[in-house]
């Protein structure tokens, strides 16, 4: 269900890193040896066995990240992103696996379209990619896709991301059929009769700037509906890019009541509020919109206590000329793969708002668990899916340094701490910033 190009596995020794794998209960200064892409030894001192040796002292080694929500724009908008460029960006951000949304052109709603993507990924993907398929044909909200065939063709989950499934009846049918496919439904929750035509959270900022409001309840009433349906059908579901305190409260209640529901939150919703929109910068325009401080705090609380198990970038590349427009005319969405860890480390971990171990869990183990992916881990016998992080050095977010084909980042020009030094995905080095390294 995940695809990556064939590469020989690394033979590598990482010496003296702080190894942090919360799920394995590891937080210690250790050496790690990788033989042919598989972790062969984790100990205070390992033999180099003629492998390339990296002095990782002062750095932190954790399981690599998993992003459950990425737009690779392929097929259709290869000028904005390709599987090669998107997975290169993912590797630069420390990700070993990403899941791509099906709202491409054409939409991934047939086994043929999906099959072509899988073939491309086998040739081009620098890290593991999984593909979601659409819930409804053409994401039109009228007819279910052939979900069993799509599941056989290795759709990892189903989503109409970008548009909600408006009909409650159709949503129910999709949940019922999910028992046949065994695949999760990942839902974009938006009641469009409440959000229609709006770009900015309904609050003081929208009122002052003159934007029609996109109220929190436009999300939360749909969240409540879908949780009720999932509870009634006793099927799991996953809530994409949660933004509102009311949605978080609904998810928490449903989980306590035994509904198998999970949720994700983006870095921008954890760090920014609608105050950022005062800049009128199209790179803070996304759907769902940035909301109020109370929403941001509720999302962070839910991330800490595990109500929200996953961080998702919702990496949404857009052509430069489309974002260089007045705020109202610009498309929704921002890139995020290459800045996610750094911005969350800088704005949440360093000030003491979120433990590093929790961040690593929510960026790696959490999303893997939700989507049934083998979790990246630091354990002998596991395929190496690791990221080496420099928590001290600061770097400036620059347009010309992005691996992504697009640069619609809300962090351009910002200085961040916490950078990726080395990403090993599926046993092979997918990204490295080690200028000099030698074998023993």
């Amino acid at each position, binding site marked *: 269900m995940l695809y990556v190009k064939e590469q020989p596995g690394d033979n590598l020794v990482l010496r003296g890193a702080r190894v942090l794998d919360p799920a394995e209960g590891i937080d210690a200064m250790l050496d790690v040896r990788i033989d042919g892409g598989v972790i062969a030894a984790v100990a205070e001192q390992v033999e180099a066995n003629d492998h390339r040796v990296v002095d990782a002292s002062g750095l932190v080694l954790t399981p690599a990240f998993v992003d459950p929500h990425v737009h690779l724009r392929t097929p259709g908008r290869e000028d904005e992103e390709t599987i090669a460029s998107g997975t290169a960006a993912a590797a630069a951000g420390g990700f070993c696996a990403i899941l791509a949304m099906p709202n491409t052109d054409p939409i991934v709603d047939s086994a043929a379209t999906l099959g072509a993507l899988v073939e491309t990924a086998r040739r081009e993907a620098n890290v593991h990619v999984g593909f979601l398929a659409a819930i409804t044909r053409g994401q039109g909200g009228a007819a279910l896709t052939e979900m069993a065939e799509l599941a056989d063709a290795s759709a990892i989950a189903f989503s109409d991301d970008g548009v909600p499934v408006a009909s409650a009846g159709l949503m129910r049918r999709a949940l019922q059929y999910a028992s046949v496919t065994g695949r999760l439904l990942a839902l974009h929750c938006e009641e469009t009769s409440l959000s229609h035509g709006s770009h900015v959270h309904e*609050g*003081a900022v929208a009122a002052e700037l*003159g934007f029609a409001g996109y109220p929190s309840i436009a999300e939360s009433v749909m969240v409540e509906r879908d949780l009720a349906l999932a509870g009634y059908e006793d099927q799991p579901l996953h809530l994409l890019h949660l933004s509102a305190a009311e949605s978080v409260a609904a998810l928490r209640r449903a989980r306590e009541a035994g509904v198998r529901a999970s949720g994700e939150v983006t870095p921008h919703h954890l760090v920014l509020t609608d105050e950022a929109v005062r800049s009128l910068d199209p790179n803070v325009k996304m759907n769902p919109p940035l909301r109020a401080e109370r929403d941001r705090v509720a999302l962070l609380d839910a991330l800490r206590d595990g109500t929200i198990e996953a961080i998702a970038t919702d990496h949404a590349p857009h052509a430069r000329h489309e974002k*260089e427009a007045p705020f109202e005319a610009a498309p929704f969405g921002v890139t995020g793969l290459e800045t996610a860890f750094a911005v969350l480390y800088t704005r949440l971990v360093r000030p003491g708002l979120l433990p590093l171990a929790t961040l690593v869990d929510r960026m790696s183990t959490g999303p893997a668990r939700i989507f049934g992916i083998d979790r990246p881990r630091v354990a002998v016998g596991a395929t190496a899916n690791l990221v080496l992080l420099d928590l001290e050095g600061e770097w400036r977010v620059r347009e010309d340094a992005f691996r992504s084909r697009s640069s619609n980042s809300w962090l351009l020009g910002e200085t961040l701490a916490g*950078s990726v030094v080395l990403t090993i995905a599926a046993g092979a080095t997918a990204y490295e910033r080690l200028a000099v*390294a030698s074998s023993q």
Partner: protein
Amino acid sequence: MNSIRLVRDELRPPGPPPRRHLLSVADLTRDDVERLLGTAGTFAASMDRELKKLPTLKGRLIVNLFYESSTRTSSSFELAAKRLSADTLNIKSVGSSVDKGESLKDTALTLGAYDPDVIVIRHPQIGAPQLVANVTGAHIVNAGDGKHQHPTQALLDLYTLKHEFGRLEGLHVAIVGDVLHSRVARSLIQAFELVGIRCTLVGPPALLPRDLGVEATTDIAAIRDADVVYVLRMQNERMEQGSNFVPSLREYAAKWGITPERLRVGQKVMHPGPMNRGVEIDPRVADSIDSLVEAQVRSGLVVRMAVLYDVLTGGPVGVRALAAAEVA
């Protein structure tokens, strides 16, 4: 021995220094407003002369870039520039490259190539003036961007009020109608706050934005206490069919229309135009001696002269500089 060296990024050089623009009333201080109104008063005095043209901005190029239809604003900006002896270039979206799908950025770059001193822009989308400020070297004056701001309208309304009442502080203005879609209302609310005018919003519930932080009511009787009733246009072009902000214009007129019966004797009425007679304003009110609508239009000319003068020169010597938005 093994070594590791991190490749770190360079710092970016700082951006260019800020230029003076008038993008939003939110960028102005009370001093700025008083200086602008004072400058407008000076220009008004010169309008009594037989020869009305002043040499002040001779040799300057002012581009009026209008993406929305406009009579009052475009004519008064053009005339203001001409009265100050500036060269003017008037571009309307109809009949220009905009018709051929040219982006705002490219149009702005094209016009920017003539090195205009000022670009006056009206655009249906919020933030368009900021974009033009970002891509050209001109001083930008916002002549209305979507539902966001119309700062020169607010300034000319303050000028009109001051002329009529001799003061601004302590006045009470009721703004009536479609506040939700009104850039005029947004600019006025900020301008009133700056100069100490009490403001009450009156209108149908769906047309009063939440969270605006201003006294608001749906009860039309609330206009009684106000010195001035400021009537907003019902913006039919922004009222999508089926959006149901109000059940009908007929019902709006019956419930919130400004009629002689709803006004006190001598209560003043303002309207930014164009008026929908019989909808938000009764024709008898529009034509009454208590209507300040024509005075508003006259104020528009001298206030826009003051704004063009101020963004280009920084105001009279010795007076604090205009704290306009800093756009890199």
